[in-house]
């Protein structure tokens, strides 16, 4: 069982370094009304991660959608210790830019490979928001 590591390079938008287990979704995430800021759990009715919490995970997702309360909802998760450890995403918009800034979670975007195809839930991910580097160690899988 050898660890297989992949390095992605992009643009850091919130500095600092953090690492943790990846939680990956191919669906955009709503902030206000889409997550419970007290627990970091996704509550949106039709979401593939409904009922799953991103607390202490490295959240890998396409981007932010929905209410302008996105930044406020993620900001709140920092206060309730339910925030993701880091964020890796593809689509820039004002919701995620402001949300990542006030959540203080190291965040990287504009990566040279699509993080949604490289990273799977359970992989170990190191995010360096200062250098814009995401290092992925694939989870060992039994054959």
């Amino acid at each position: 069982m050898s660890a297989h590591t992949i390095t992605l390079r992009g643009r850091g938008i919130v500095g600092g370094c953090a690492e943790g287990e990846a939680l990956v979704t191919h669906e955009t995430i709503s902030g206000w009304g889409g997550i419970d800021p007290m627990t970091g759990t996704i509550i949106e009715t039709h979401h593939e991660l409904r009922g799953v919490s991103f607390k202490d995970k490295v959240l890998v997702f396409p981007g932010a959608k929905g209410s302008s309360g996105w930044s406020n909802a993620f900001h709140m998760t920092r206060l309730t210790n339910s925030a993701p450890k880091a964020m890796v995403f593809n689509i820039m918009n004002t919701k995620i830019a402001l949300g990542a800034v006030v959540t203080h979670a190291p965040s990287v975007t504009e990566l040279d490979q699509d993080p949604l195809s490289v990273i799977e839930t359970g992989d170990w991910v190191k995010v360096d928001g200062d250098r814009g580097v995401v290092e992925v160690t694939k989870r060992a899988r039994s054959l």
Partner: protein
Amino acid sequence: MKLTDGEKAMLDGSCGPGKQKAMELLVRYAEALGAERFVDTNNVAGVPGSSSLFLQNYYKQRAGNGDYETIFSLYDLDSDIVVPVPKASSYCCHLQGGMDPELWPAQGMSREAYDHFREDEAEVASHGIQLLKTCTPYLAGNVPVKGEHCAWMESSAVVFLNSVIGARTNTEGRESTSAATITGKIPDWGFHRDEYRFGTHAIEVEVPVESVMDWGMLGYFVGEAVEENIPVITGACGQPNLIRHKHFGAAAASSGGVEMYHIVGSTPEAATREMAFGPRKPVATVKYGAAERRAVYDRLNSNGSDTNVDYVMLGCPHYSIEQLWEVARLLEGKKIRSGCSLWIFTSRAVKSTADLNGYTKTIQDAGGLLMTDTCSAIARAVPQGTKVVALDSAKQSHYLPAIMGIEAWFGTTEDCIQAALTGRWNGDLA
């Protein structure tokens, strides 16, 4: 970033610590976006310094104080120190809030929460911020003009502002609008720029879209189809009025993240299809026909199974006076069924007209309540024991069942009033 001398002066502290902390946040935000400069704004819609009991207690425990200045500094401006809060230098209105100023006991709010609400409101007013208390500022006195650079929160208001009015804003957040209020600056990115506002997706409407419910359904469909891109709508959809735009945009901003749309021949930047797309070619063409209409109706009703309705909520986004007139006509001389509640939400400005016109009394006489400032999703307030709600808003149907864990039916305003009068859901797709 390229900063002007005035912006540099705010950033280096020459204009005081409040503006300095606000500029620091705006610079971090603008750099995250990749913006190169700021644009001046004198029209902000936000919720500056507004605080829940959670925030007050949080900062009381950790910073020794949960007052307006502490929350505005440490939360709104994401500052590491508490700074004196400057008065607004840009015209700013306060969006919706957490409770009705009079009917809060019916909403299940505590006296303590109400007292804090009043204190907050006094602070907001004393800082020069207009207490419009609505998600529809454009129905309560703040109507921007075409081309005006704004910094607005509230996704349904943002999409209305860009698409129907032709003014310019991104979907701002609490922290950026609070910072903009005291600096008059917002990142020059996204919808502030001409090249960003052209259509990306073609939506071809093949079934007649006429009723408000149909416009809400089309919006919900379009949001799912284009996510946060810019749809250009052509086909059998005629000339929607303000209410239809309000419900369409709110729905599209909820199921997707639509911040701007074009309806060819109707919205101001879409006199023609060519004008709407500008230099872009549509990346996809999506058809909305009878099958799509049926599918979106079923999806909006997928949270309903029990036809016994105990709550009817109207006013998402906040009802216009025309909608209150319609409801008053439907309720005239009738009584809401015992065991069922009807709450209708609007702004204080619109309610004052409803009071004058007798609509508030008509609603009360029927057994309903006309509330202001908030809604069930924002206040997390439904009548005690609510299990099944009926709604005429696709946006509220998207959020309320998820937030409150209740069943929901979606239909026309008339379906909803019928449910309030009979206690039964009888809506169907005509």
